[in-house]
């Protein structure tokens, strides 16, 4: 279709036809590959009927000519050779030089090398993270000196974004936790005739541990990712550089308000989760165990002390700062590419959740030692 083959005496005559364009390159190559070239027989190429020849087409033709010459055939054109071939020759010379100039990087792929590389990277990452924490702390302390530098409007925005808009989902989760605890414990305790302890379990479980923990995990997923994505795309867009160049400290206007906003929002959300959790517990006890509301309230009063509530709430700002730091730190690390942004947002959320759970475990040990 793209080439007609004829034999005139001792020479192979090829007549190129149709449009030799990149989009048909597969067919062109197959047509050329199908041509049989007896070794040493001269080849003559006619281009009178060729309607179009682009660079890709010319490249395929040149590959064919190279094959023919490799087989000892002499290749000539019936008329003038197409311009595109000359252009290709000029380019090819430099392209070959380009490939040769690329030095191969030494690749260590062994298990040991991989462990070493990750250890070094993790070490550097920890040092950088601590540096970030230090700079954020210093900026925060400095911004305490004046109301203007505290960026209260910005803080309020983050309280709204991270806190108020999360109320429905946090409330729902709070309710579901109490459902889970109540059902699970009711089943076990009923056999012992100790139904009343369901109240203890719900109240202590929600207030002390699960309310704050699950709220933090939700917030890590919502706000941790939002912080990382927002700061990361600002980095990609050079907005962070623009701030620095204007003489504005990005930590002061971007990082500290987010940390402060989250540190205010998360305790408030925890209170919401606690309240809804207790209300859910009361509801379930009413219908699952036929326990009147007054008895539930009385039992809650007996089972918990104020410190149960405060122990839970105290953890909230700590978790908030951990989540905020992970989000902001990873966001500020983004550079160069959209893929990097996606990777670091993922890292931010996973690390935020990890640190929250780790800190919760440390708190559990600490409070136990303190007998609270």
């Amino acid at each position, binding site marked *: 279709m793209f080439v007609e083959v004829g034999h005139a005496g001792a020479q192979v005559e090829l007549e190129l036809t149709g449009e030799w*364009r990149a989009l048909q390159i597969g067919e062109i190559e197959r047509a050329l590959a199908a041509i049989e070239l007896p070794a040493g027989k001269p080849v003559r190429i006619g281009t009178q009927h060729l309607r179009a020849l682009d660079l890709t087409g010319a*490249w395929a033709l040149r590959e064919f000519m190279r094959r023919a010459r490799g087989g000892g055939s002499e290749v000539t054109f019936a008329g003038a050779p197409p311009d595109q071939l000359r252009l290709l020759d000029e*380019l090819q010379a430099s392209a070959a030089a380009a490939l040769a100039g690329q030095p191969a990087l030494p690749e260590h792929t062994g298990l040991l090398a991989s462990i070493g590389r990750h250890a070094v990277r993790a070490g550097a990452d920890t040092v950088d993270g601590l540096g970030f924490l230090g700079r954020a702390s210093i900026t925060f302390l400095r911004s305490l000196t004046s109301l203007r530098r505290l960026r209260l409007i910005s803080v309020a925005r983050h309280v709204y974004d991270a806190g108020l808009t999360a109320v429905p989902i946090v409330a729902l989760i709070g309710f579901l936790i109490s459902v889970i605890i109540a059902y699970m414990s009711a089943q076990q305790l009923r056999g012992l005739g100790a139904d009343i302890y369901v109240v203890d379990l719900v109240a202590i479980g929600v207030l002390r541990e699960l309310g704050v923990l699950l709220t933090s995990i939700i917030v890590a997923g919502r706000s941790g990712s939002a912080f990382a994505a927002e700061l990361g795309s600002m980095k990609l867009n050079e907005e962070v550089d623009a701030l620095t160049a204007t003489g504005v400290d990005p930590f002061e206007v971007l990082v500290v308000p987010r940390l402060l906003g989250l540190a205010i929002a998360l305790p408030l959300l925890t209170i919401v989760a606690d309240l809804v959790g207790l209300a859910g517990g009361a509801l379930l006890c009413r219908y699952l165990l036929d326990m009147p509301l007054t008895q539930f309230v009385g039992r809650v009063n007996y089972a918990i002390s104020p410190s149960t509530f405060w122990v839970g709430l105290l953890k909230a700002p700590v978790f908030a700062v951990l989540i905020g730091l992970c989000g902001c730190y990873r966001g500020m690390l983004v550079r160069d590419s959209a893929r990097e942004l996606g990777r670091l947002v993922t890292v931010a959320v996973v690390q935020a959740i990890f640190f929250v759970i780790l800190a919760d475990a440390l708190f559990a040990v600490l409070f136990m030692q303190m007998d609270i």
Partner: protein
Amino acid sequence: MYPLVEVQGLVNRFGRQLVHDGLDMQVSKDDVFGIVGSSGSGKSVLLRTILGLQRPQAGVVRIGGSDITQMTPAQLRSVKARYGVSFQQGALYSALTVLQNVQLPMIEHLDLTAAERDELALLKIRLVGLPADAAGKYPAQLSGGMVKRAALARALALDPSLLFLDEPTSGLDPVSAAAFDELVLYLQQHLRLTIVMITHDLDTIFRTCNRVGVIVDRRMESDALERIVDHPNPWIQAYFHGERARARLAGAHGA
């Protein structure tokens, strides 16, 4: 012979804002057509409409004779393989090297082996005058001028006969911009390209374009470059005969 790109009675409206109101445009084969207009006059919207990135409220956009506003996405795909586009900011895929960026359209549309793609992509990179080591670099490692060239190499990946350039020289220093103009001319002549470009750069217009379309009052006034400069519309007069243009115009007429 029908025009390669033809726009008739184009109407684009965003809410209450009327951007184009009966805009006509014609680009013939082998033209280098410059689209000019004040900021906010709808140059980019026009280009996006021609590229099929947004549908107009009314009007016809023909590329190679067929109306793209009536096409299904599958039909549009085959049209899109026939032209190349270089966006204003380059729009290179940041996670891919320059070589991979150039290869991406080839992988989508061409029937080639990986080794052949490597070779052809390197050819295109050389064609736009990028240095040898640029192939393995990521877009973030390139200078502004190199990004523009890499974007052009990607636009040329499928050897299109029609090329759209959005602000090809914006953000470049005058020397790099002049070099880019020469590159565009070189490619236009050697590859027999038809080029449609949006530009503000008077030097680029006088060096590369043979026809110019000016968007004024939501329509387009287009003519050959020598004649459009004498168009009576006040904005066109201000554009071609303003303080910045005068020196250039004197030079062009003198030459």
